[in-house]
């Protein structure tokens, strides 16, 4: 099977009229992770949002070549194969973790059965909280619930914005293991992080954003 590939060509992004970085070129293939580096305000979140299609680049292009591409008439789009964990957890305070994850997985086109959601939450040490309103969880617990999507999805492309924020040491180790497994299985992960995330044997490339 072909490997998926994420190509970024001469990409310039900005907030409003002002360019944050210019001329970014990189090509990632399945089996590679990439860490986005740059100081505060360099455009790390902007890059991830642009890759996900939430923002239009000022110039340049993003090409997604899917491993599943069947023929030219039936392209598999980046959106179909994406798991995006943003800065916010995307959890509604009045819904339980199970309900939230159920909807989130349906939204990204990969519905999963509720028992599997409960199992995954249990693996992440959230068993007792699975049916409590999400609003009553601590910041770290919410983050873990939000990250549970990574255990439920089979999307080849992951875009993770500060996935380890508010996580304790054990949860961070779990996250690293999951990310490494995903990349080792031929997936791509692009992430930003302030904490050190040790992805063991997996190649991690750097995307350096220099302000212009």
């Amino acid at each position, binding site marked *: 099977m072909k490997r998926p590939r994420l190509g970024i060509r001469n990409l310039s992004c900005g907030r*409003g*009229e*002002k360019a944050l970085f210019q001329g970014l070129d990189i090509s990632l293939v399945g089996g590679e992770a990439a860490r986005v580096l740059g100081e505060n305000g360099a455009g790390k979140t902007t890059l991830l949002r642009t890759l996900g299609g939430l923002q239009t680049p000022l110039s340049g292009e993003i090409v997604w070549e899917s491993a599943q591409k069947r023929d030219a008439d039936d392209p598999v789009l980046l959106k179909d194969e994406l798991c995006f964990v943003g800065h916010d957890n995307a959890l509604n305070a009045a819904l339980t973790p199970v309900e939230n994850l159920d909807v989130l997985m349906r939204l990204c086109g990969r519905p999963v059965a509720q028992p599997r959601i409960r199992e995954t939450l249990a693996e992440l040490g959230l068993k007792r909280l699975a049916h409590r309103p999400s609003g009553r969880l601590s910041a770290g617990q919410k983050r873990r619930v939000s990250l549970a999507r990574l255990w439920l999805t089979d999307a080849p492309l992951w875009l993770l914005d500060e996935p380890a924020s508010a996580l304790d040491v054990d949860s961070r180790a779990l996250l690293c293991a999951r990310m490494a497994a995903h990349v080792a299985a031929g997936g791509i992960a692009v992430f930003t992080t302030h904490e050190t995330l040790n992805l063991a044997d997996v190649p991690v490339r750097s995307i350096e954003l220099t302000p212009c």
Partner: protein
Amino acid sequence: MLWLHRFGSLPYFYRVSRPIALALAVPGVLLAVYGVYGGLVNAPVDYQQGDAFRILYIHVPSAWLSLFGYTSMAIAGAVALVWRLKLAEIFVVAAAPVGASFTFLALVTGSIWGKPMWGTWWVWDARLTSELILLFLYLGVIALHNAIESPRSAARACALLSVVGVINVPIIHFSVEWWNTLHQGPTVTRFGRPAMEMAMLWPLLCAALGFTLMFGWLTLWNMRAQLLWRERRSRWVKKVFSDA
């Protein structure tokens, strides 16, 4: 298409918009003055309305512009949304205050004309009511533009709002018309509309055309200021002012 591409270039637009604005201003003002002169001086007195009908030489062109302006905004808005053309975004934002002021003018002059004709300043007549709602549509676009901080998002939001608005304009007009025939009935004195004499009609057409050209001029004028503000940090703007 090449022409369009070149025109889409902002420095080019900034350079040529000035002569184009003047090229619109001169015939626009001349035509408007000629039309108004013809209406005020040459046109014979209307046998029903007396000299008050001379207000129409302002009112009718303004009312025409209010619709023309909103439609042009919506077309530019659609272009801005589909092709992300920056100049189209700027047009929407720049045309809104001009269109709003002519809509206001149409309302005020309509009301002043109505006082001697209907005996009251305001009548919930179908056309006046539609015009009032059109003014609110304009004010909505202006208010939205002022409220959103990022100029880009503000302009795109205004573009969408004007497209939504223009779909509603005929519906609003139809509904107001429907409501008017239902409740107002024949209580409002309406004058018969005999065919206008050429001496009356001709200046009116000239004034309307002149106002339309002036609308283009004033909007271009506004666009230049808008463009400069949005591009104030760009290299070409700095170059324009360091060369000067």
